[in-house]
């Protein structure tokens, strides 16, 4: 198969470009079909659903081949929704939300056409031999900053970069839609309200945006000097997500932007379905996956711990009657393992006898859903429990102010990570860091400002480090980071960049501005013998950094 890779990648690029152009047509076609659903009678609805389902099947089967995995994912969701609608009849005619949800998915599909994965053929260069680049997997979020002129735009542009946002400034609101079309995916828009003393232009641009099927959902944050009820009300009516009055602290703005752009970035819920009836399990799976959850089905309770360990579900849906063992026995067995004592277990069964239901709950079930269950009921029942489970778990593992891991869990992670790398040749770096002269910040500007500084550092760490790195707040202004697959030099390089980025952030308090710096000590596990030793070494290096004048990264001495 000896063809020049360039020939192939050129040809592939050409095919991808052709395909990309057609996604819009497909989207228009689908949207037109969805619109016809409402008000149509059952027979016609069935035909339309079939047509949508077939069209989506095609898109699902082609999207990722052309580098649009998002198109495949959303098309598959749409197809499943239609199949579900056709099969169970549960939505036909009754559920007004059905076509709305379908339409939402369709819009997401169109938006996904902006996220093309990198072309093939150049893969070898992209596979990192050593440490992967910063914030892998999460691309920078793109911001549009609409501000006619002035320092605000430049300031936002420069500072947002530190927090993982790529800000692009566009000149005049009238050009908004054109610019959006040229820029592909935009995560949020930051805009002023007054341009050249004209309050109307921004309004007009936003109104126009709201009518555009592709871009109407982009969150908008208003940044303005106008502080009056009429302006705020007008903003709310335009669907503005946040209204901030200048002067705005960048940390507050980043908080708001994090919040309004988070939506798509939450991890899907993971649900384990234990049911020996294949078709019922498949149905449950379809319903939950159509709602964006990840599922795994097992028909055999004997291997349940394998499924639990591999899939690490956040909820278990358990059939009450299975061959070999009864649901409540299985629940009791699962509960015996300490790490699964808290996982929500929901029984799903045709058992209508209340007393039997209660006895099942006594053995460790959290809820009892009676089959047949309405899909929306099942979805919300699962969603509520998983959300609560996540919250509870994060209270146990995380620091409430920053959302980073707390002292205890960080130490535990260090132990388990070291146990893991001891069995391999993998390198692991440990970093201790501390905010310089933090007491002065608190004393001069108050604790509220001090907290903001800590939160900013936490956010910067999260955005600059990879998903695999474990970040902990060890208490006060002290932090620690465990970096798998990283050696001493790589960790120093990364933290030098973080140190520099943090020192450039401007904090505002009492109408003054100030900068804060950090010091870091870096150690590599292979140079030390135990978790305690590596963390002591990093602490010593941190101490040396402080001693040498702060605002620097120091390597631990090798023992």
């Amino acid at each position, binding site marked *: 198969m000896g063809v020049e890779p360039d020939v192939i990648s050129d040809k592939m690029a050409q095919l991808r470009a052709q395909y990309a152009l057609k996604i819009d047509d497909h989207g228009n076609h689908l949207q037109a079909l969805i619109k016809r659903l409402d008000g149509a009678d059952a027979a016609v609805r069935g035909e339309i659903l079939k047509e949508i389902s077939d069209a989506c099947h*095609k898109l*699902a089967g*082609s999207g990722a081949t052309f580098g649009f995995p998002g198109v495949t994912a959303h098309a*598959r969701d749409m197809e499943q929704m239609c199949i579900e609608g056709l099969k169970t009849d549960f939505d036909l005619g009754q559920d007004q939300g059905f076509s709305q949800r379908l339409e939402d998915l369709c819009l997401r599909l169109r938006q996904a056409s902006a996220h093309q994965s990198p072309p*093939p053929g150049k893969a070898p260069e992209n596979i990192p031999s050593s440490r992967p680049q910063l914030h892998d997997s999460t691309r920078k979020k793109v911001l549009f900053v609409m501000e006619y002129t002035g320092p605000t735009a430049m300031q936002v542009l420069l500072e947002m970069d530190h927090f993982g946002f790529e800000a692009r400034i566009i000149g005049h609101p009238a050009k908004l839609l054109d610019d959006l079309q040229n820029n592909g995916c935009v995560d949020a828009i930051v805009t002023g309200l007054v341009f050249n003393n004209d309050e109307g232009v921004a309004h007009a641009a936003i109104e126009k945006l709201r009518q555009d099927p592709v871009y109407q959902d982009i969150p908008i944050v208003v940044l303005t000097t106008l502080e009056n009820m009429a302006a705020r009300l007008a903003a709310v009516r335009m669907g503005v997500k946040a209204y901030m009055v200048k002067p705005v602290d960048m940390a507050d703005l980043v908080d708001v932007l994090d919040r309004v752009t988070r939506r798509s970035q939450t991890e899907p819920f993971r649900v384990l379905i234990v049911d020996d009836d294949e078709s019922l399990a498949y149905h449950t799976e379809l319903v939950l996956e159509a709602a964006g959850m990840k599922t795994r089905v097992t028909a055999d309770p004997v291997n349940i711990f394998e499924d639990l360990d591999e899939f690490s579900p956040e909820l278990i849906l358990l059939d009450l009657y299975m061959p070999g063992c009864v649901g409540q026995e299985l629940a009791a067995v699962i509960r015996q393992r300490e790490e699964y004592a808290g996982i929500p277990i929901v029984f799903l069964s045709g058992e209508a006898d209340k007393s039997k239901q209660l006895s099942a709950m006594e053995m460790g079930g959290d809820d009892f859903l009676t089959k047949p269950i309405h899909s929306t009921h099942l979805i919300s029942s699962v969603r509520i429990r998983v959300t609560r489970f996540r919250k509870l778990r994060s209270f146990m593992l995380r620091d409430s102010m920053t959302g980073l891991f707390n002292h205890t869990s960080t130490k535990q992670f260090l132990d388990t990570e070291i146990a893991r790398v001891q069995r391999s040749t993998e390198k692991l770096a440990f970093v201790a860091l501390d905010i310089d002269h933090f007491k002065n910040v608190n004393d001069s500007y108050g604790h509220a400002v001090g907290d903001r500084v800590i939160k900013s550092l936490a956010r910067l760490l999260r955005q600059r480090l990879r998903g695999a790195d474990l970040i902990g707040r060890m208490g006060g202004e002290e932090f620690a980071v465990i970096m798998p697959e990283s050696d001493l030099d790589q960790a120093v390089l990364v933290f030098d960049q973080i140190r520099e980025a943090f020192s450039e952030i401007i904090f505002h308090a009492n109408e003054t501005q100030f900068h804060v710096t950090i010091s870091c000590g870096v150690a590599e596990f292979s140079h030390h013998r135990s978790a305690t030793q590596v963390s002591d070494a990093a602490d010593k290096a941190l101490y040396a950094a402080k001693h040498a004048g702060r605002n620097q990264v120091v390597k631990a001495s090798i023992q």
Partner: protein
Amino acid sequence: MSFAMVYGDAVMNKGELGKILYVEDDPDIQLVAKMALETIGRFSLSVCSSGQEAIDNAVGFAPDLILLDVMMPGMNGPATLTNLRAIDILHATPVIFMTANVMPVDVAHYKSLGAVDVISKPFDAVTLAQTVQEIWDRCHGR
């Protein structure tokens, strides 16, 4: 059910994979597959846009292997397969289904219809030829 049981031993003696009959109604997918199989894989390809077209062309082309999309308007993949099997020279030609439905239960179903394997869609254009070659090799006990 093993491959040999279904198709007899005739196929076991066949040589290299050269000619592939490819049946797919989506013109976009046709283009990528053409590139993947002709340019990268260096196979000789006959592309058909429908089951009927495949049946009309199959005898003249005498493929070594058939790649068949499952979901097509009119005659779908499984129906096309049945019709192709009725043609003398094709009764033992290995057929691979291509489909977006790759639940284990679906795969088992397609294999029970006589497919040697199933390639999931969306496929990776860079590795498609390799995948097809591997399936071919496996069919021939290599």
